[in-house]
């Protein structure tokens, strides 16, 4: 069950709000301090990616982030309504970045997330992409 859900317009400024919430909700859920940095970065990447994908396709719907602590796991989902980017490996992305002046290399985000998060699930359908990331909780949650 999601205990906190955040919806925000697809603009970069709100990505920082999402990061801030990720670290405070994570801490409060009992996330080990050594993981907080990682969670903040991964959630930030997922949100930046969602904002980038939606802006690239002019989609104005809100990005939806949920935070849940469940049976020893802290689970975060980030859902967008943009068309998923093609899978790409980092070498290609680094090449692609050559010509980038105005647009951001969206594919980087997923690559960073994949490097950071062991328990990662990315599902895309016609409506958009959901990035689901889980981290273990060491201590029992103080909220529910």
């Amino acid at each position, binding site marked *: 069950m999601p205990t906190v859900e955040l919806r925000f317009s697809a603009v970069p400024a709100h990505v920082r709000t999402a990061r801030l919430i990720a670290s405070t909700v994570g801490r409060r859920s009992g996330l080990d301090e050594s993981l907080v940095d990682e969670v903040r970065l991964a959630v930030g990447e997922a949100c930046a990616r969602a904002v*980038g994908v939606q802006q690239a396709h002019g989609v104005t719907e809100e990005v939806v982030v949920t935070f849940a602590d469940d049976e020893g796991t802290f689970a975060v989902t980030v859902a967008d309504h943009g068309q998923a980017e093609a899978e790409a490996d*980092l070498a290609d992305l*680094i090449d692609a*970045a050559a010509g980038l002046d105005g647009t951001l*290399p969206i594919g*980087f985000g997923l*690559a*960073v997330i994949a490097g950071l998060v062991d328990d990662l699930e990315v599902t895309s359908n016609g409506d958009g992409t959901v990035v689901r990331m889980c981290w273990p909780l060491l201590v029992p949650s103080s909220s529910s």
Partner: protein
Amino acid sequence: MDLSLETRTEGDRTIVVVGGEIDVYTAPKLREQLIDLVSSGAYHLVVDMENVDFLDSTGLGVLVGGLKRVRAHEGSLRLVCTQERILKIFRITGLTKVFPIHASVDEAVAATE
């Protein structure tokens, strides 16, 4: 926290001291700065990241873009970073193989191509 940028020159090197957060929100500012430098003929850049608190993939993208740009002029882009959590991001994306990363500005300035 916002991004802060300062530049100075040492010989033919231009040092860009970056502070704060390089993220989806502030990265455009850094990109502009790098483009301006290259346009004005600064092709040997040292980006000092010791005061960077946060770096995400859009920040990486801007750095890679800067590297491509200086290389088009036979230039160089060197990073200064000793912070483990920032280095980790370069490592997991394989960018440690793309950027020369130094432990101090002096070391970066002294490095030859």
